[in-house]
């Protein structure tokens, strides 16, 4: 399959990239890992007139803790996350997520920022970032905005990002002791998008009381879903079989799946429940370690 023609621009700095975005307006698109955009162009579902390749902008690829945040650069790839010792030791939920995205080759190119910016509810990181309470740093002509992830996803393929903004960083509050998280996804095969996926992050205090909890759902609605009722039901409670089961049911109720080749809506709802159970159990277990 052959993509339609376009002009190719390769800025060396963020301001240069933003200038291109302003110059070409709606006709321009940022090219990051290209693993969502290029397949769409080959199907001729996306036909940008100008591709602004940000891959050569230096200094955008990093994973570090700073000022109470885990900071992930705008060009950090899935493979970087998979290989990072910091992610391995402190953020197993992110490792869970990166590992089940697509396949090794795609992960070598695909970026976390692109995964969020694409606004696809089938992507896996949104749920995890919702669970973690992440912030998206967007740089535009007016400077930097820090967008809370909770309001980042607007509708299918639409986010809070303006067309002349670039995601330069993702920030995640460094989890305090007693934190644990997990992401679970059911896929039809490796490389497939989720039939459903659930991310859960908990902070467990003394006596096993849940102080904070984040639950995000993948591919069961027009946008990634933050399961607020489920979260609320657990806050201040002891995490045990009953409370977890209750939360799982609430998460399932909050899902808005539709029937498709991956299964009927009813099944996906059931899956959300089951995966929430398991994700919370694993998150709790990890919190103890």
């Amino acid at each position, binding site marked *: 399959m052959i993509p339609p*023609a*376009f*002009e*190719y621009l390769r800025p060396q700095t963020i301001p240069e990239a933003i200038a291109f975005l302003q110059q070409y307006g709606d006709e321009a698109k940022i090219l990051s890992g*290209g*693993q969502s955009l*290029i397949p769409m162009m080959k199907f001729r579902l996306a036909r940008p007139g100008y591709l602004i390749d940000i891959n050569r902008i230096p200094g955008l690829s990093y994973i570090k803790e700073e000022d109470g945040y885990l900071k992930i650069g705008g060009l950090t790839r899935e493979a970087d996350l998979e290989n990072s010792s910091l992610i391995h030791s402190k953020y197993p939920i992110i490792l869970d997520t990166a590992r089940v995205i*697509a396949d090794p*080759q795609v992960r070598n*190119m695909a970026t976390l920022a692109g995964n969020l910016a694409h606004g696809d509810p089938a992507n896996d990181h949104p749920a995890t970032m919702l669970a973690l309470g992440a912030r998206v740093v967007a740089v535009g002509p007016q400077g930097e905005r820090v967008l809370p992830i909770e309001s980042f996803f607007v509708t299918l393929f639409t986010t809070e990002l303006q067309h002349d903004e670039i995601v330069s960083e993702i920030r995640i509050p460094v989890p305090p002791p007693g934190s644990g998280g997990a992401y679970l996804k059911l896929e039809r095969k490796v490389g497939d998008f989720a039939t459903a996926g659930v991310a859960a992050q908990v902070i467990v205090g003394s006596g096993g009381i849940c102080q904070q909890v984040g639950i995000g759902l993948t591919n069961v609605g027009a946008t990634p879903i933050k399961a607020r009722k489920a979260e609320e039901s657990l806050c201040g409670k002891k995490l045990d079989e009953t409370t977890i089961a209750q939360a799982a049911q609430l998460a399932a109720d909050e899902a808005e799946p539709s029937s498709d080749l991956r299964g009927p809506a009813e099944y996906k709802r059931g899956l959300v429940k089951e995966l929430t159970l398991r994700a919370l159990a694993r998150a709790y277990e990890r919190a103890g370690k």
Partner: protein
Amino acid sequence: MAKKQLVQIKVNGRNREAMVEPRLLLVHFIRGIPGLTGTHVGCDTTHCGACTVLLDGKTVKSCTMFAVQADGCELLTVEGLMQNGKLHPLQEGFKEEHGLQCGFCTPGMLISSYALLSKNENPSEEEIRWGISGNLCRCTGYQNIVKAVQYAAGKMEQGGKDDLPNIA
């Protein structure tokens, strides 16, 4: 038609350059400009991995990248695996362990396996299966590919790292 741009890519150690349309897919550059037809197209949708090449040391699906993106980069394709007239242990392994049938997936499989072994000298069966999970094979059922990679891992352990071509 968009205006053509100069692209320079070092393919298997040789500089190749051409004026290309920005939309030229990397796989078509490889197959067309240096005429290296070992890199195949099997799916168009980034699923099969038959087009896998090593770009600056990392595997990518060359059907999901534009040649202009690889400007100034180094590429290893299946044709670059053989060094000084000697088969790479992986190539040997695929032959010895019957790791191929129609051969269409083989170039991509070899490159993915190559990348895997550069990161993990002695992968388990499970690790190999995950390592080649971006490459579809319709003929072998993968089992002998796993054996082929294990064969190569064994060979390279004996022979040391010298067996790895230092292209990427």
